[in-house]
């Protein structure tokens, strides 16, 4: 009866016609019987549009998932030649000689880690300092523009950092900073060799500028996630502002560590700026002034020049190692940040 009413409403001139009579009969027949068709079997109570939409978005979500898997697989399958030829020697020998087709990646792995860790050594205290300033000290009117400026720093293309490095930072290091350190510490192994400007020190400084915004912005979020009751409790005990900040920092320890590790992940994979200032020589040296090389720089410099299959596959293996290292660093970092932010929810 209800259905008839609706029908009559939606199609006024339909009423009274022969078709209407037929439809009425149809409803009478199907009354009380649940019709099961192919469509109702799949859909249940769902709208067909809903189902298509859900599956479509699922498809794209799966695409993102498979993309990562595909990336790993592509690099593995394209580097099997090198993996079979060199095996573990690829990681622990230090001759990188494309002419003789001998590839040992130790110097570039060393260069990657040392440059990134040096960068963190500079960026970590600064980044935490900025985060403390933004989250604990700065008044509202100052916090917003300052956060914007640090984010702007993160938005500058890495090739522009490199350009600035070549023409501003490197000459300054070569003419003033490096001779100064050589005069101050003539016997220190850290400052041996000719002061070219291009080298580990320049790379570490450029990298530290580049990872600073990541460390500071994530640390700020972590510090802000610590609830105010913690601060109020410390104030109530008569703590000074710095002592309150210490309480907050110790509460956010693992999150801050995570922020630093995210910075490390970025530094390890950073390519252009480092390639432009590090000097690009696969050598292991204790001196900060000597040129070095990183995994990403090797790829940037040599990939288009690689002619033999073994050379290309060695380079792709390098990319695979870089891929695995950055994924592991990132996973660890995310878990750490997550654990702190989660604690207070």
């Amino acid at each position, binding site marked *: 009866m209800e259905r008839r009413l609706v029908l009559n409403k939606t199609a006024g001139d339909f009423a009274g016609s022969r078709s209407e009579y037929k439809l009425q009969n149809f409803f009478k027949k199907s009354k009380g019987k649940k019709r099961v068709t192919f469509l109702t079997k799949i859909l249940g109570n769902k*709208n067909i*549009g*809903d189902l*298509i*939409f*859900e599956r*479509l*978005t*699922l498809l*794209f*979500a799966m*695409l*993102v998932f498979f*993309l990562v898997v*595909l*990336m790993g697989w*592509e*690099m593995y399958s394209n580097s099997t030649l090198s993996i079979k030829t060199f095996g573990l020697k690829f990681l622990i020998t230090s001759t990188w000689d494309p002419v003789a087709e001998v590839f040992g990646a130790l110097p570039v792995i060393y260069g990657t880690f040392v440059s990134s860790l040096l960068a963190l050594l500079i960026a970590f205290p*600064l980044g*935490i*300092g900025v985060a403390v*300033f933004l989250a604990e*000290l700065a008044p509202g009117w100052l916090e917003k523009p*300052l956060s914007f400026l*640090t984010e*702007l*720093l993160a938005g500058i*293309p*890495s*090739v*522009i950092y*490199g*350009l*600035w490095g*070549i*023409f*501003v930072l490197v000459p300054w290091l070569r003419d003033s900073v490096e001779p100064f350190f050589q005069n101050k510490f003539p016997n220190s192994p850290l400052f041996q060799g000719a002061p070219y400007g291009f080298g580990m020190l320049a790379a570490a400084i450029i990298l530290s500028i580049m990872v*600073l915004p990541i460390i*500071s912005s994530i640390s700020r979020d972590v510090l802000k996630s610590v609830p105010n009751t913690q601060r109020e409790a410390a104030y109530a005990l008569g703590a000074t*502002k*710095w*002592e309150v*900040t210490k309480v907050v920092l110790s509460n956010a320890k693992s999150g801050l560590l995570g922020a630093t590790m995210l910075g490390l*992940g970025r530094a390890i*994979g950073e*390519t*252009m700026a480092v390639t*432009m200032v590090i000097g690009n020589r696969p050598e292991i040296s204790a001196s900060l002034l000597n040129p070095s090389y990183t995994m990403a720089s090797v*790829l*940037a410099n040599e*990939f*288009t020049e690689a002619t033999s299959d073994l050379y290309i596959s060695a*380079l*792709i293996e390098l990319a695979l190692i*870089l*891929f695995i290292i*950055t*994924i592991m660093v*990132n996973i660890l970092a*995310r878990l750490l940040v997550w654990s702190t932010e989660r604690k207070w929810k």
Partner: protein
Amino acid sequence: MEMKFPMKKFIFYKRRTANFVMLSLSLLAALITIVPLVFIFYYTISKGISNLNIDFFTKLPTPVGETGGGMVNAIVGTIILIAIGGGIGIPVGIMSGTYLSEFGKNKFGILVRFFTDVLSGIPSIVVGVVAYTLVVIPMKHFSALAGGIALAILMIPTITRTTEEMIKLVPQSYREAGLALGIPKWKITVMIVLKTAWKGIATGILLGLSRAAGETAPLLFTSLGNRFWSTDIFQPIASLTVYIYQYSTAPFKDWNDQAWTAALALILLISVLSLVFRIITRSKYKA
């Protein structure tokens, strides 16, 4: 009392000094962060502005030794590369972000979210290597398409996560209002939820696009670079960032100067891009 506890006063001053010193250090750190930003902008503008003229935007690069010339091919090339990247990356990002927020409250959703984060941490040069093995090797030559695909992969995580976060901000009552009117769920998602969240999503897209415009590493061995005029997406194509890299590492003074101009042009291009994008999204989706 004072005489009895001389340590008390000492500790009091020590605490106050520590407070002052540490807070000043924190302020100092904030100031130091701003210094490189000022430096980089100052040098890019002051060194780049002298060569920034009409020729730069209308002429092709000149051969080595000849002064003058411009980078019109690189500017157009960069725009084409971003367009390809956006054309692939934006729909994938929005759709997967929609999945995560609307249907992603299960194990697969957590997995996808996790993989999106993983993807955002992968170095851009590695993405370039993968685009090389996936597109350049089968096609047997470098192409703008390969570069665009690399840029798309780099954009996807940003757009996905922003879309998810922005959709989550849409109040549940909006959806309920739609359901009360008997609208199917997919229409509610597309026409009410996505439209409400559009401004935030557009910011995410903008972020993805401007980052892609500044990428160099994934383009080095995918789109390669081209000294001539080309808009064919199956051929190598020029881009501003690759030019900046090549011109700054070359031993010619006028090339180095042009690298600064290209850097300034790149910053201008990104600013114009964000401006145009903001105008488009505002006029079209204003409530």
